[in-house]
């Protein structure tokens, strides 16, 4: 029973990172109807750049974190300008956008390989001071708490921003209908660029937290979370922010529970992808997806 409780807590921690990653993923999909497959590459670069700032630059993690996040946001702007903006007028922008995002993912990943090498690296031991709290058989580290706190804070800020701020409302307007938004005087291209900035910044933040949590970073670490992120946003409903958060947590929990129940880690991903497949076939709009997203 204690092991189960511990597993649930761990699932919650990793789930919050999945959620943070997926929120950025789903934000772009909600606005543009485009699947940005370069999101995982930005996630990887975020982690590696933060590590470089700490390791070579000698910055404290509390300074390196926002710097790397800002850098990832700028990568998002680059992504939009190079890969998506030129295709926007094309009739098939969802399809060609998917392809050009794959191209950018390859280019980003090769940059990560070229700049940081292929080996697995980790943050220096003193990067964050870790306390361990124990309560009966349950142990929680301060790092875990910080990760959850940062993820939840960022997700909360994003939700508030989209609901309350003027620019946030403009993003939602563009997501609803970009032509109408343009008629209302909204600078649509600027809003889309800004959406990419936020999305990539969040993806980068998730990369840093992921690297800190698992204590390992490598140029191909985006591969596994790319597919999980997809599963999360489909489960939560494409384009839905609360859906992505809940989906992330559910996914983290399902992973640890599968391991706890079957006793091996072999089937961990199989359950997730079976769920993804079933959701797509039975309820393509996901748990919290809007009706208009239904494509079946």
């Amino acid at each position, binding site marked *: 029973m204690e092991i189960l409780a511990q597993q649930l807590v761990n699932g919650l921690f990793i789930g919050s990172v999945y959620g943070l990653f997926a929120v950025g993923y789903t934000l772009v999909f909600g606005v543009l109807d485009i699947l940005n497959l370069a999101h995982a590459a930005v996630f990887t670069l975020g982690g590696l750049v933060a590590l470089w700032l700490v390791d070579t630059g000698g910055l404290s993690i509390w300074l390196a974190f926002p710097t790397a996040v800002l850098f990832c946001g700028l990568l998002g702007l680059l992504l939009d300008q190079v890969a998506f903006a030129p295709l926007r007028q094309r009739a*098939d922008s969802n*399809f060609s956008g998917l392809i050009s995002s794959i*191209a950018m993912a*390859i*280019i980003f990943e*090769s940059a990560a390989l070229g700049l940081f090498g292929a080996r697995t690296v980790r943050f220096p031991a003193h990067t964050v001071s870790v306390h361990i709290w124990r309560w009966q058989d349950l142990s929680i580290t301060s790092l875990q708490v910080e990760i959850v706190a940062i993820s939840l804070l960022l997700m909360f800020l994003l939700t508030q921003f989209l609901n309350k701020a003027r620019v946030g409302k403009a993003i939602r307007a563009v997501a609803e209908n970009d032509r109408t938004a343009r008629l209302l005087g909204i600078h649509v291209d600027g809003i889309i660029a800004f959406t990419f900035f936020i999305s990539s910044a969040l993806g980068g933040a998730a990369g840093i937290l992921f690297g800190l949590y698992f204590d390992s970073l490598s140029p191909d670490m985006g591969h596994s979370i790319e597919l999980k992120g997809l599963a999360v946003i489909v489960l939560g409903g494409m384009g839905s922010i609360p859906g992505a958060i809940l989906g992330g947590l559910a996914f983290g929990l399902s992973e640890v529970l599968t391991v706890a129940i079957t006793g091996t880690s072999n*089937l961990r991903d199989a359950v997730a*992808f079976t769920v993804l497949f079933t959701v797509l076939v039975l309820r393509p709009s996901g748990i919290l997806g809007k009706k208009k997203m239904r494509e079946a």
Partner: protein
Amino acid sequence: MEALQQFLAVYGSLINFLGINSLLALSLYLTLAAGQLSLGSAAFAGIGGYTAGVLTMKLGVPYLPALAAGAVLAGLVGLIIGLPVLRLKGVFLAIATLAFGEVVRIAVLNIDITGGAEGLVGIPNITTTWGIYLSLAIAGYAIAKLRRSRIGWCFESIREDETAASAMGINTTYYKTLSFVLGAVLAGFTGGLYAHLNYIITPREFGFTVAVDLLIYNIVGGIRVWYGPVLGAVLLTSLPEILRAIGITAGPIRMAVNGLILLLVILFLPNGLVSIFQRRGGRKQNTRMDAAPEEA
């Protein structure tokens, strides 16, 4: 003659891979021709490869019946998966086929008869270069013929506009499933060829990365004519050798060139590299991208 033998000794395995990748690219092309974006081809190749490999290795079944069995099984799975999944459109279909591919990969990892993560080892080495290219010639001829048949026109009309096609009385479900199953059969057959080319096959060789590669071959080559995917597969598979010939050996640069080619093609040649030749021939260009069934 001696020079030819030396050439074959050095590039023999590359030549085999060119043929295999061309066949796999064509298998995806069959599905794309009807406008269905699938990321499941690699998994079908895996099903065919493992089936054929297990049959010849463990049950002593002759080579050609084993290949046929692999192709048939892949086709059957394609039919079972295709019926529910092809109701989805665009990226949703891509994600569903992707999830299917991952489930297949994980299943192979966890079944005893397939050898798990170490792969199926000791498959008899039967496939010859002639066999591969004979298959490629037959597949190319059949696909070129198919394209100008009633089935081919139905595929094309579904790709251009599914609603209009169905209004014209075309049974879209039937033809979409047919394109999916035909693709699965060819992929399964090629998987069998591939399994008997190497001593060993592993689940990794049929994963997400390969599925994306097959899509890239199609896009770079162009999906307006059947030899487009072959051109893309040949060019990108031999790219590492070409780069080595001009003195570039670093892995990251090779990868970056790959990504750059894809990006430039999608931005400037939406109909793929084959459109260069067609433009020179003065043929009328259709600027609209193929395989663009999405609606907003």
